[in-house]
């Protein structure tokens, strides 16, 4: 855990948008700009991917990121690396303390496996991702969905290798903030999952804020 607070005031943000649960969000930020994801009501998983805005085939890579920092969880100081091994963003503030790198996104198909075959119809992060990429209309698709970050989600791994989806450690008003180290296309699914504690069984809105560098 590496709790740290931001120097940026929400009053000076150049962009603010509330993303309801079950909705995707796409936005491009320039190198040097700062983006904050704010958990408005608490315990809300925010499935997030990052792409090089100039070359979307370069994207966030879970394995490179966690291996090079020698730790499974993200927090202040974490350097988010691409599939090319380049630095994409740095986490500069975090009042939650731990974010998941292993759980990936929920999908209609994985819901049938994890919960019951008749859960296929339920809304999922992958459906949000696919629809956002289709609307983006830049040739990106399911093929462009690598393993994502789950901000505010708590997926502890024990020393004997067991993995669980535990109750959230986030709360209303907690946030994570990152500085872009290259021009970045952000893709978010504010998770609609109703079947596990990642959203406390009650998906809620989050807010995205962006600042120019101070």
């Amino acid at each position, binding site marked *: 855990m590496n709790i740290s607070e931001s120097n940026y005031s929400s009053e000076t943000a150049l962009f603010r948008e509330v993303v309801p649960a079950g909705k995707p969000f796409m936005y491009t930020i320039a190198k040097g700009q700062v983006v904050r994801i704010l958990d408005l009501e608490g315990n809300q998983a925010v499935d997030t991917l990052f792409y090089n805005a100039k070359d979307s085939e370069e994207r966030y890579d879970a*394995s490179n990121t*966690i291996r090079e920092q020698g*730790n499974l969880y993200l927090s202040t100081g974490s350097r988010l690396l691409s*599939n090319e091994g380049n630095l994409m963003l740095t986490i500069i503030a975090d009042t939650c303390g731990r974010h998941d790198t*292993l*759980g990936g996104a929920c999908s209609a198909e994985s819901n049938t496996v994890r919960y019951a075959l008749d859960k296929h119809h339920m809304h999922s992060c992958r459906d949000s991702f696919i629809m956002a990429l289709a609307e983006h209309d830049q040739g990106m698709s399911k*093929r462009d969905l690598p393993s994502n970050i789950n901000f505010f989600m708590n997926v502890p791994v024990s*020393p004997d290798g*067991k993995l669980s989806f535990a109750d959230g450690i986030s709360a209303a008003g907690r946030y994570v903030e990152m500085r872009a180290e290259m021009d970045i296309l952000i893709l978010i699914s504010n998770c609609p999952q109703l079947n596990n504690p990642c959203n406390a069984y009650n998906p809620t809105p989050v807010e995205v804020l962006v600042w120019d560098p101070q």
Partner: protein
Amino acid sequence: MNNSAVPVPEQLIWEQRVPGGAHWSGVLRRGTTLRLGDTQGGANCSILFYNYEERLERYNMADTLKGQHTAFLSSGNVCYSDMGRVMCSITADSCGWHDPVCGVSNARMVREKYGEASYQEKHNDCHKNGYGSLINELGKYGMDRRDLMPTLNLFSKVVTDDEGNMQFIAGNSVAGDYVDLRFEMDALVVLSTCQHPLDPGGHYAPKDIQLACWRSALPGPDDPCRNSCPENQRAFINTERMFP
């Protein structure tokens, strides 16, 4: 490893040695099993699976781990695709822990860790890296870096403490260790035998893998991989709907 290591030698279809630092790809059909053997000890094999009929359906680390509530794979586990199906099952494993998290080395890492060794100088002993090796194999099928997902690193073990700090465990696999993958769908298999990216050894010394493929029975209702958790039972149902 020789033919006698295969459970039913008369069912053997083919065998092949993949030298250390090499890359390989091939199609494994439903109803066959692939044994990967560590013949020298200390091997690493970074492997990926794609549905051969629809290559957008691919091995998914996250779905595999959360479905089975585990951060490593061993016998009784299966490898899930991103479409809720079982691609292959780990029906035997003498080694006990395979790393699904840490990914592969890249050119910069190998150069910094082991120095330069060009083809001009070293011929087929030139230094190779996991990322380039997998990109090379994927390219043979019109696939590229968009298709390169987190690998399963067979024979390698990385543990974490309660704070998430990771530690590579040397000596997880010894000479003679093996893992058997029974294929539940026709799969394109892509692999690299480059060293694990956290391998602390200071020398470029990737180890061989011996492949052996044989015909094997489809899993019945009592199959241990099917029944190791309710999630696997449902994933097998999803899979078997593709093969009526």
